[in-house]
């Protein structure tokens, strides 16, 4: 029965190609626009590391002075000051801790011109916590952290550039005038977003080079991203380290949510203790946030992406109304055809089903056009904003969703017209023969 209806549908669609084309275009445009926005939104809003969700937590302390919020009132700064980060690190109240900040360094390769590479100065626990895939070698130990050993971990891209992609573990590298030993080489890694540090461009690839945290501090390197100071600090780097400027990112790994709560209690104690030293003027307002909560608080999904998604849905609504109009108009012609059908014994529900199938056929056409437009639309978004290169990419799931959405939209649009069609009294139109 379904196959018969489908054949009828295709025949009738072919008979009025112009109207069919109008309907497919109208629906396809709406689907294409919606799915382009949805692809972008899904990639931006998707959790980059679900397996780490219950274990890794970001730490925020509110030592900001009164009278001027960091960004939003009631929200603590997203980064820590050096003195607080160091104090927490030394207290070692979590099984694993990452203390880190981004910088850059000049690499002087043997047979190439020197160039500037992006660096993440971090503690060794970073690799165990955030699990970047290691291709060769490993990372540094806590002892090496404390000793500020001259060791480095390279990204795959940097390894390709310096050592032609060979296993470079153990080899020597000149960074900012000193010799470092390569401890490990990462495989391709591109968490979307770069959840461990969302300052700057959260969707571009991670840093080229990973060096122990103490190296950056020892070298007097400040963050290449955010150094927010309130009040402005005086003097040299030593003064900068003592100041209330925030620039350090701090994460902990605990076994469970209970561990996170215990850590928050420890933070609150620390804040109260600092108050006696004249710091932390505001009421205690610390945070220990899971990855999902952290990403949401930092508003990684851009406001204009949200607006885009909403507007696309509005557009789709108009397209569906459009399809309903056109389907209704289309079924006007079929009055005689329907009458004959009914006279021959077709029941109302059969007529209804038949026209639903026709609507679904339009939906399939819209799906094809919609998929094409989604691919084109995403390509356009990537061209307009190169930092979304990895984010504006429809995968198989999104394309399947495109088909599903188109079918659903077409069926929804077809409900009213199909119902109207099956309600037509057969005799009226037979009379005019």
């Amino acid at each position, binding site marked *: 029965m379904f196959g018969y209806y489908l054949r009828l549908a295709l025949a009738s669609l072919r008979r009025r190609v112009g*109207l069919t084309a*109008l*309907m497919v*275009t*109208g629906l396809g*445009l*709406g689907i294409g*626009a919606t799915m382009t926005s949805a692809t972008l939104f899904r990639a931006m809003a998707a959790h980059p590391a679900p397996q780490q969700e219950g274990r890794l937590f970001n730490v925020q302390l509110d030592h900001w*002075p*009164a*009278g*001027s919020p960091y960004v939003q009132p009631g929200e603590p700064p997203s980064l820590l000051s050096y003195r607080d980060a160091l104090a927490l690190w030394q207290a070692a109240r979590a099984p694993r801790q990452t203390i880190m900040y981004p910088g850059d360094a*000049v690499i002087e390769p043997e047979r190439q011109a*020197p160039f*500037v590479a992006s660096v993440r100065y971090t503690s060794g626990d970073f690799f165990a916590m955030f699990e970047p895939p290691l291709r060769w070698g490993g990372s540094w130990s806590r002892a090496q952290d404390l000793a500020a050993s001259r060791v480095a971990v390279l990204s795959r891209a940097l390894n390709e550039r310096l050592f032609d992609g060979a296993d470079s573990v153990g080899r020597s590298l000149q960074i*900012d*005038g*000193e010799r470092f030993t390569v401890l490990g080489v990462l495989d391709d890694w591109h968490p979307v977003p770069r959840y461990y540090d969302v300052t700057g461009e959260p969707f571009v690839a991670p840093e080229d080079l990973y060096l122990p945290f103490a190296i950056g501090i020892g*070298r*007097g*390197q*400040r963050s290449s991203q955010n150094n927010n*100071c*309130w009040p*402005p*600090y*005086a*003097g*040299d*780097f030593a003064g*900068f380290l003592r*100041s209330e400027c925030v620039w350090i990112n701090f994460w902990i790994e605990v076994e469970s949510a209970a561990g996170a709560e215990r850590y928050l209690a420890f933070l609150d104690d620390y804040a109260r203790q600092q108050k006696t030293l004249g710091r932390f*003027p505001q009421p205690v307002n610390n945070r220990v946030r899971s990855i999902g909560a952290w990403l949401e608080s930092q508003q990684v999904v*851009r*406001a*204009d992406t*949200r*607006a*885009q998604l909403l*507007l*696309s849905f*509005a*557009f789709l*609504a*108009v397209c569906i*109304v*459009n399809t*309903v*109009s*056109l389907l*209704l*108009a289309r079924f*006007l*012609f079929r009055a005689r055809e329907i009458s004959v059908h009914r006279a021959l014994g077709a029941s109302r529900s059969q007529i209804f089903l038949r026209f639903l199938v026709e609507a679904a056929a339009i939906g399939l056409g819209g799906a094809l056009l919609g998929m094409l437009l989604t691919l084109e639309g995403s390509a356009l978004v990537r061209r*307009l*904003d190169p*930092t979304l290169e990895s984010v504006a990419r429809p995968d198989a799931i999104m394309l399947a969703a495109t088909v599903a959405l188109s079918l659903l939209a077409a069926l929804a649009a077809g409900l*009213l017209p199909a119902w*109207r069609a099956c309600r037509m009294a057969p005799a009226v139109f037979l009379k*005019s023969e």
Partner: protein
Amino acid sequence: MSLLLSALARNRTGLVLLAGQVALTLAIVANALAIGGRELDLMRRPSGLDEANLISVRCRAPGDALYPQDFARADLDALRALPGVAQATRINVLPLADRGWRTAVDRQPLAGGAAARTHAALYFADEHGPTALGVRLVEGRSFRADEVKDVGPGFSYNPAVALISRALAEALFAPGSAVGRRVYTLHTDSIEIVGVVERLQSAWPGWPLHEHSLLMPGRMHSADALYLIRVADGQAGRVRERVEPRLNALQPPRIVDTARPYAQIRATAYRGARALSLMLGALILALLFVTALGIVGTASAWVESRLQQIGTRRALGAQRADILRHFQLENLLITSTGIVAGSLLAYVLNTQLALHYDVARLAAWQLGSSALVLWALGQLAVLGPALRAAAVPPAVATRYL
């Protein structure tokens, strides 16, 4: 007219749907215009700089904590000597570059936690800074070479003088002149304002106080050296090619970050706004297109379903022009109903958006022009089917008897 209404009454659902589509389209298009219009306005704001003739370049020296001062002097000499270069300066940060310094400012000393009158972005450059930036001095004077002092990591000196942007001057000192007055920041003693520049934007286009800036004389001490080069008109391309080789030719060779035209910095700064306005433009066009499609499709269908009626009327003496006018009036009625409903919907939508998403308010001209476009679009779309209807010969009436 009564014929028209009775014809319409027979097809109520179709009418409601079409009018509803027009209403939705108007509401969305008008709001899209409002949002896009504001984004475009934001993007069009001038920064106060001579952007067309500006190139930025950053230099690093390997291993050293701070970029050596004698390197910086040699760099500036070399850059200023390049043919086509009008002026060059070393500056701490660049307007629109999303990275910068800012602090609270007031016209009396700031006490610890008290709320300051306002905030401002801070720029430090040598005595050639204002010329290199291309800012326009509207009052007072620029700073002198002897007023340039060292600026260490952080905000470690008390500048004696500063240039102030006009917006900040008005915020602090209106209605009087700012020249000769003193301004206080959270860390420094008072700074004397010696001149007012017409415009100097901060590094953050999205910051509400984007027009508040202080430009102070300072010799930068930082890990890298950021230079701003101003070229003579039309020389930007040629100079940009020469900057890196010239710096690499110095001893020791400098490690140079690409020489960037200001257009690139501006494009990056407004990337989100640009993407949004393009997307809104595409949305408006697509919506109008789909609505036009709908009108063409439904009008064609209605014409075809009424062939007998049209034939009868022609047989009874109606002219082609009458038939044409009938269908165009019909369309006008539908679109008008849709536009009236849509206007109300547009304002409701706009109020909700403004409440929850901080969206621009709808201006009357935006709604009016959207309505006009929809009216025109409707009439154009129905023209084809209406002409076909007018071409129906009277003889058709007899065919169905």
